[in-house]
């Protein structure tokens, strides 16, 4: 699946997007965050405070316990500041 990062999540990780292949036991958004956090310092910094992280699964807002099984695209970003 494709992972997208925006705003300071993107800056801390140092990537706008990448292909990821989490193992089968990574089933929810929250578990994916934990799995990504272990990939390196940038990821750990980006996800250090999960309360400030929002996620979207296939371009729809997703809660931490949302399943990621069939997702093609998962995005992580800070709370939005549009408008």
């Amino acid at each position, binding site marked *: 699946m494709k992972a997208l990062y925006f705003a300071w999540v993107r800056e801390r990780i140092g990537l706008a997007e990448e292909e990821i292949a989490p193992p089968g036991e990574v089933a929810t958004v929250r578990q994916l965050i934990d799995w990504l956090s272990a990939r390196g310092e940038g990821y750990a910094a980006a996800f250090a405070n999960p309360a400030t992280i929002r996620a979207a699964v296939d371009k729809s807002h997703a809660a931490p316990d949302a399943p990621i099984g069939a997702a093609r695209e998962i995005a992580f*970003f*800070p709370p*939005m500041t549009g408008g």
Partner: protein
Amino acid sequence: MTQRTAPSVRVQAEDFDPGREQALLTHGRRDIGALVSFVGLCRDEDGSLESLELEHYPGMAETEIGRVADQALDRWPLLGLAVIHRFGRIRVGERIVLVIAAARRRADAFAAAEFLMDYLKTRAPFWKKERRADGATGDWVEAKSEDESATERWG
């Protein structure tokens, strides 16, 4: 039942013309009594801002704004609805966002426009980064808890 209004949603780097968009929405109509338009501008809070860099999530931005627009159409009897949200570099004094709601009655147009703005603030995938007048890159604008509570009041 009249035909359901189709909202117009645009996400673009270019500026827009609020007067032109209002004219497009009302052109040839005999049934619109009230037109409420909201323009959000890039403002300088402390005298040191030069511009904002608006990052967005292409695809999701349009989809999410469209979803909020559909919710507004479910809640109020609207005769027209247009939303434009810009991305990229926006200087102080420039327009960022436009919402126009048309209805027979003013209360519906006001409520729909305010609802849309409240929801856009907390649901549309845009992020603002400050650029300072001295050339320095500033911080990412933080989400305000008052925006969350503005959204919550719509239930």
